[in-house]
């Protein structure tokens, strides 16, 4: 099966802007969408409680609030986003270990990484992480999901 993450351009722009704002510290956030649809509709920038150029950690209180809001709205975490500020957009060993732990609790999300090491260009890549193995997937950036062949049974918001 071909792995792919379809991502709206405005969400890409929001993630890159958030990553640039927090640079040289790592930035993090979530892409959420309707439960079961595998389609990110909103980007939620999160605080990096670690405030570090080499580590990120959600603020516990903010994470609880966001999780409860998305769960109550029948949304789910489609992707976990973070930036690397001095290295390529590829999951570190730490990323893989913690992703495996995450998958014991919540459905495995896409892992979207943006590298901000170059000031003028960014690198955005996406992965699935399971049982310690990293699989890169294709990212299709689209203006709107409506015209991107998401299928007749889907009714995207825009």
């Amino acid at each position, binding site marked *: 099966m071909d792995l792919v993450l379809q991502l709206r351009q405005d969400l890409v722009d929001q993630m890159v802007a958030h990553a640039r704002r927090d640079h040289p510290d790592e930035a*993090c956030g979530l892409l959420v969408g309707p439960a079961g649809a595998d389609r990110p509709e909103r980007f939620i920038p999160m605080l990096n409680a670690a405030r570090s150029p080499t580590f*990120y*950690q959600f603020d*516990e*209180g903010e994470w609880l609030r966001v999780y409860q809001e998305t769960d109550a709205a029948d949304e789910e975490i489609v992707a976990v986003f973070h930036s690397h500020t001095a290295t390529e957009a590829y999951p570190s060993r730490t990323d893989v270990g*913690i992703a495996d732990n995450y998958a014991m*609790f919540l459905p495995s999300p896409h892992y979207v990484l943006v590298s901000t090491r170059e000031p003028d260009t960014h690198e955005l890549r996406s992965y699935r992480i399971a049982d310690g193995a990293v699989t890169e997937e294709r990212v299709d950036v689209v203006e709107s999901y409506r015209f991107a062949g998401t299928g007749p049974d889907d009714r995207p918001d825009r």
Partner: protein
Amino acid sequence: MAVTVSIPTILRTHTGGEKTVSADGATLAEVIDNLEANHGGLKSRLVKEGSLHRFVNVYVNDEDVRFAGGLDAKVADGDNVTILPAVAGG
């Protein structure tokens, strides 16, 4: 004393699909033991060598128990306990 525990999606295999379950105890440790008695398999996801797993967040109401005594955190009748994975990386 009964508390309501919110179970994250994957762990609902241990609770017959239930999103929230009721559990008894005066401390988080007692609540987890009571959960384990009724829904076997949950404890090993949460506790390792007598402490909470490093990358698990447990909240009593809105407070992360890491700052309230960890497994010794007190719970009261009607409290809400929420379990989430920590989200972090390098």
